C-alpha cells in the first residue's frame, strides 16, 4: 500500500482508527458479500456493534 501523506489520507486514517467509518465499511462489505439481504440502519448498526463490543473483555487495568 503506497500511501502518501496527503491531508485526505491522514483524515482517512483517523476515521479508520477511531471507528468513525465503521458503518461505511459495513455497507461496502454488505454490498459485496450479501447483496439483496436487509441492511441495518446507521443507528441499528451502531447499537449492535456497541452491544457486541461490550459483551467481552475489552478494557483492562
Amino acid at each position: 500500500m503506497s500511501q502518501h501523506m496527503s491531508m485526505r489520507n491522514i483524515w482517512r486514517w483517523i476515521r479508520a482508527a477511531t471507528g468513525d467509518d465503521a458503518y461505511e465499511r459495513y455497507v461496502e462489505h454488505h454490498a459485496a458479500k450479501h447483496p439483496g439481504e436487509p441492511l441495518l440502519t446507521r443507528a441499528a448498526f451502531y447499537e449492535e456493534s456497541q452491544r457486541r463490543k461490550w459483551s467481552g473483555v475489552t478494557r483492562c487495568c
Partner: protein
Amino acid sequence: MELLKNILGIVLSIVGACALTMIAFHRDEPVNALWIVTAAVCVYLLGYRFYSAWIAAKVLSVDASRATPAERHDNGRDFVPTHRWIVFGHHFAAIAGPGPLVGPTLAAQFGYLPGTLWIMAGAVLGGCVQDMTILLLSTRRDGRSLGQMARDELGPFGGFAALIGTLLIMIILIAVLGLVVVNAMKHSPWATSTVFATVPIAILVGLYLRRWRPGRVLEASVLGVALVLFAVVSGGWIDSSPTLRAAFDFSAVPLAGFVIVYGWLAAILPVWLLLAPRDYLSTFLKLGTVAALAVALLLMHPMIKMPAMTQFIDGSGPLFGGKVFPFVFITIACGAVSGFHALVSSGTTPKIIASEGDVRLVGYGSMALESLVAIMAIIAATLLDPGVYFAINTGAGIVGAAPDAAVHTITGWGFPVTVEQMKALANDMGETSLFARTGGAPSLAVGMASIFGSSFGRGLLSIWYHFAIMFEAVFILTTLDAGTRVGRFMLQDLLGNLWKPMGRTSWYPSVLIASALVVAGWGYFLYIGVIDPNGGINILWPLFGIANQMLAAIALCVATGIIIKSGKVRYAWVTALPLAWLALITSTAAWQKLTSADPKLGFFAAANDLAVKLANGVLPPEKAAVAPQLIFNQRLDGWLTMFFLAVVWFVILDMLRVSIRFLRGRPVASSSEAPYQVSRLTST
C-alpha cells in the same frame, strides 16, 4: 537493509548499556529522568527487534501465509481484517488502563531503581512475551478466550480455574480502583465536581451517538472532550464559591456510596447510554495525555529526587508492608507483566488481526509501549521531593492525622518536609490539603502537574492538577463500568449452571441480580478500604497484584502447555521461565501475607493484633468502632490469598501433568488449532 538493521541494533545496545549504567551505578549524584527514558526505550527496541522476532520465528512459527480468523470469517462486523497500525492502536487502548500509573507510584517507596529495572525486564522477558504468545494462540483458534483455550488444551479444571480467577481479580481490581478515585475526590470539591460532571457529559455524548448523529464517533468525541475540559476549568469556579463548594465537599464514605450506585447503574443501563461514550472520551484523553506527558518529560528532563533505593527495601515501608523481594514485583503488575492482558489478547484483537505477521507489533509492541507509560509514572513519582511524596501517600493511621506529627515522622525517616511546604503545594494545586491522599492518584497528579507546569506554563498548576485527577478518574471509571459488566456476564454464566434462566444474559431480573452481586462484591472491599485508617490501599493493592500476577501465571501455563504439545519442548523456557518467576514471587508474597507475624505484613497477624488491642481496650474510640469489620476483612483477605495460591498451583500441576503425558507419548487433548488455510489477502 539487513546490515542497516544490525548496525541499528548495535547502536541501540551501546546507548542502552550506557543509560543503564548511568541509572544503576551513579548512586551518589542525582540522575536525570532522560537516562531512565533512554534506557527503557533502548531495552524495548532491542527486545522487539531481536527477542520478539526470534520467538515469532522459532517458538510460535508465525506464518504470514496462513489466513487469520479476520480473513476466514470476515463479516464486516466483529471479524474484520484491519491494518496493523490500527490494530496496534486499538489493542494499546484496550490494555493501557490506570494500573501502570498506580503500581509504579506506590512502588516508588523502595526508591526509583527496583521498580524501574523490574518494569523493563518484566516487560521484555515476561509481559510482552505473554501478550504476543496468547494473541497468536488465540488467532490460531478463531479468537477463542483464555478460559476456552485452557479448557480445550489442558482440561475442564484449567478452564474453570481461569474463569473463577478472572472473576475474583475483577472484583478486587474494581474495588482498588474505586478506592483510588474516592481518595482523589475526598474533600476536594474541585475534583469531585469535575468527576461528577463526566457522567452527564458521557450521557450527552451517548445520546448524540445513538439518536442525533448515529455512529459519528469523531464529532461526538471532540464535543465530549471539549466539555470535559470545560468541566475541569469550571470546577475551579465551583471551588472558589463558598456555597457551591460545600455542595461538592464529601467525606470518603458517601463518595464510596456514589461510586457503588454509579457502578450498578452503569452495569444495567444500555451500553450506548453511558459505558460506550465514556470509553470514547477516556480513550481520547488517555492517548492525548500520555503523548503530552512524553513530550513534556523530554522538554523538562527533570532530575530524579528520590534515592535509587530507600531504607524501606527492608520491609518497613509506610505505603505497604513487605520487603523489596517479592513485593516490588507484586506492586508493579501492569507495566511489567499483567495477566489481565491475556484476556484482551484472546478477545477482540485476534478477530481483527489481518496477518499472523502482525502479532509482533500488536502483542509485543503494545505491551512495550504500556511499559513505557509505567516508566513515566515512576518518573512522575520520583521527581517529587521524597518528603512530599511520603506526606501525600502515607495514611494518617501511620504518620498521624495532624500535619505537625506527619512531617515530624517523615522528616525523621530522612526525607525532610515542612508543613509550610505542603501548604504551599496544596495551595498551588488548588486543594486545601495534600496530606495522606493515599492511592497514588493525587501524587501522580502533583508529579504530572509539575511536569506539565514547567513545560507548558506554571501559572496553571491547579488546572493541570485537576486535569490529571480527572484524566485518571475518567478511565478508572471506564474500567469500573466495563469490569462490572464483564463480571456480570461471568456470574450469569456460572449461575446459569445452577438455574437455567439466570444464564440468559438479557433476562432483566437476571441482569439486575447478577449486577447487584458483582457490585456488592467490590463494594464491600471498597467500603472496608474507605473506613480503614491506614488508607486501605496498603491491603488491597498487594492483593490485586498477587491476583493479577496469578492470572498471568495461568495464561503462561496455557501457553507453555501448548508449546510443549506442539513438539517444541526445547523452546518451552520462553514462557516457562516467566511462569516460574511469577510462581515464585506470587507464592512467596502470598506465603508472607499468610504467615508473617508482623501485623504490617501478615493478614492473620494484623487481624489478631487488632483483636487483642480491641479486647484490651487500648484502641481510640473511632478505631474501636471499625475494628471488628477490619478484623473480619483481614481474615477474609487471608482466605482469599490462600484460594488464589491453591488455584494457581492446581493449574501449574495440571499443565505439568498434560505435558508429561505428552512427552511420554500418552494420549492428551488434541490441539484445538484451526486448520491451515492459505491467505488471499495481499500484504499491506
